[in-house]
């Protein structure tokens, strides 16, 4: 459906330093597939998601939707954005406080001049689980609970009948009790409408809850990807292993030292090597520190980018 090939996104920061927020990513989202993109803060998840939506222009690589590369002309983008929709982390912020639910959901149809706004809005709302829609149409965001707001945001995306949903931390700011509901909704939408989804998260539990496939991102690259069960129960990359180990209930913790790395200064060789827990116990680390790893190709099979992984 939606595919990124060899994607690079750079930002020029202060003092002329360039942040390679996304530094070579191949990622495909198949029809009706839910892919979870996990990684720690600042590794480039959001940037990747935004680039997939055409909100950010890649410095290299391209986005391919349904076999055609995305073009950045205004018209093409507009058409593209009927197909691919976005759900953001903060539902309160994603809704204009001055727009009613109706206006918020109808915004997309209005931009795209879709006919029959009323029924589009109603059906989107009920599909997002806000039933009966009339009860919600004229409310303002502040009169809704967090879960309801997130449903309104989802309804707003659904109103355009998209094929792909990109959700950036869709439940991170919601209450624990509400989180399950929203995740169930995404699952149901996939089942009922055949929607594909890319869910960006730092929460492995969430990936376990809903994703078909997981891609683990570290410093602008995907370092491990594959079917959820395979990756989360049998991680190959030391980074994934560490991430899983710090979850509660895990038998033995591997706590990585140091802070999240800096995309303006990507280490040579394996970009994870300065924090890698395997390095101290590995006899020969020359490959890790000097030999760059290839970019993982687009495939659904488990794959890992690590010199030490036994694959």
């Amino acid at each position, binding site marked *: 459906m939606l595919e990124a090939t060899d994607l690079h996104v750079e930002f020029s920061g202060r003092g002329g330093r360039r942040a390679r927020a996304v530094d070579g990513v191949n990622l495909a989202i198949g029809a009706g597939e839910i892919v979870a993109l996990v990684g*720690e*803060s600042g590794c480039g998840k959001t940037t990747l998601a935004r680039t997939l939506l055409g909100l950010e222009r890649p410095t290299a690589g391209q986005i391919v939707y349904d076999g055609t590369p995305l073009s950045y002309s205004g018209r093409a983008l507009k058409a593209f954005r009927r197909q691919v929709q976005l759900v953001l982390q903060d539902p309160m912020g994603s809704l204009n406080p001055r727009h009613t639910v109706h206006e918020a959901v109808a915004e997309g149809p209005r931009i795209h001049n879709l006919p029959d706004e009323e029924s589009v809005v109603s059906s989107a709302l009920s599909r997002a689980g806000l039933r009966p829609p009339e009860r919600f149409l004229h409310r303002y965001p502040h009169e809704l*609970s*967090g*879960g*309801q707001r997130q449903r309104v945001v989802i309804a707003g995306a659904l109103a355009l009948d998209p094929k792909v949903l990109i959700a950036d931390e869709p439940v991170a700011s919601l*209450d*624990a*009790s*509400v*989180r*399950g*509901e*929203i*995740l*169930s909704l995404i*699952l149901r939408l996939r089942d009922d409408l055949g929607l594909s989804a890319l869910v960006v998260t*730092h*929460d*492995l*539990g*969430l990936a*376990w*809850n*809903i994703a078909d496939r997981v891609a683990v991102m570290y410093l602008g690259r995907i370092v491990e990807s594959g079917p*959820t*069960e395979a990756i*989360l*129960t049998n991680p190959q990359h030391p980074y994934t292993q*560490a*991430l*899983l180990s*710090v*979850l*509660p*209930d895990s038998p033995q*913790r591997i*706590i*990585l*030292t140091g*802070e*999240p790395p800096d995309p303006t200064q990507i280490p040579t060789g394996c970009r994870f090597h300065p924090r890698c827990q395997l390095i101290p116990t590995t006899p020969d680390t020359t490959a890790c520190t000097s030999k760059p790893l290839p970019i993982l190709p687009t495939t659904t099979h488990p794959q890992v980018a690590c010199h030490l992984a036994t694959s």
Partner: protein
Amino acid sequence: MLELDNLSVTYKAGGDIPAVRGVSLSLAAGEAVGLAGESGSGKSSVALALLRLLPRSAVVGGRVLLDGEDVLTMKWGRLRAVRWSSASIVFQGAQHGLNPVQRIGEQIAEPLVVHRQASGSAADARVRELLEQVGLPAWRARSYPHELSGGQRQRVMIAMALACSPQLIIADEPTTALDLMVQAQVLTLIRDLIALHGISLLMISHDLSVLADVCDRLAVMYAGRLVELGPSSGDFRHPYSQALAAAFPTVGDPASRLAPRGLAGDPPDPQQLPGGCSFHPRCPVAIESCATSDVQLRPVGDRTAACILVGE
């Protein structure tokens, strides 16, 4: 060492907002207790009430006994003396807990100076010692908060809390805004330090798994009330606690694979609490009488829970 007796907090903003409604809880010396609950359930209000830090719009009832002394009726001078030297607070550190225009060394030393525990070079030495305890190099004392990462800032907050060697540390969502890995670092640090110094800890979070990791006992709040209190190991009995626990699945647990679970309905509005058990509109196992009769905490096994279906 800390005892909350029927603590209540009501905000007078427009109407009355009963944020905390009769919370009783006690903390033994060296014990770590976790306080969980969803947003708006009154956790922070409890924490602030402990040192009378609530805004003037808040009316506090009940008693807060700290070493047998009621904090709520203390003289101002005494209260100032108690603050930080007996009990200190760690806020969610990543953003606003530190004064952005003061060097962190000064901020750590400030309580020492205020409470006349050290000054001048003695204070400096203590600051270095504290920074090293939380795993930061001593030269960081000269840094400003924005020069530190979120995790480092949180460590500074912890160092600051330890400054006057208090008997109690209150940690309000100390790891919420932090990354998974950093969160693990900070939690480990807290756990190690309180064990080392024998400090009591009241830790607040909305993530039960985080609390279970650090604390001996857990208290779960819903709509300003405690609904369950018990050891951190073992199964929850109150349906709300259970739902909260289920919200964070165990990776690898086939039961939760592709089956996210949560709680239907919305958190209650503190100004319009439902009658009876305030949880009943969202309760998956509610029975008719839940709508009418309010249940107090009642013992069940090694814990207490406020549910009509429990302990019958």
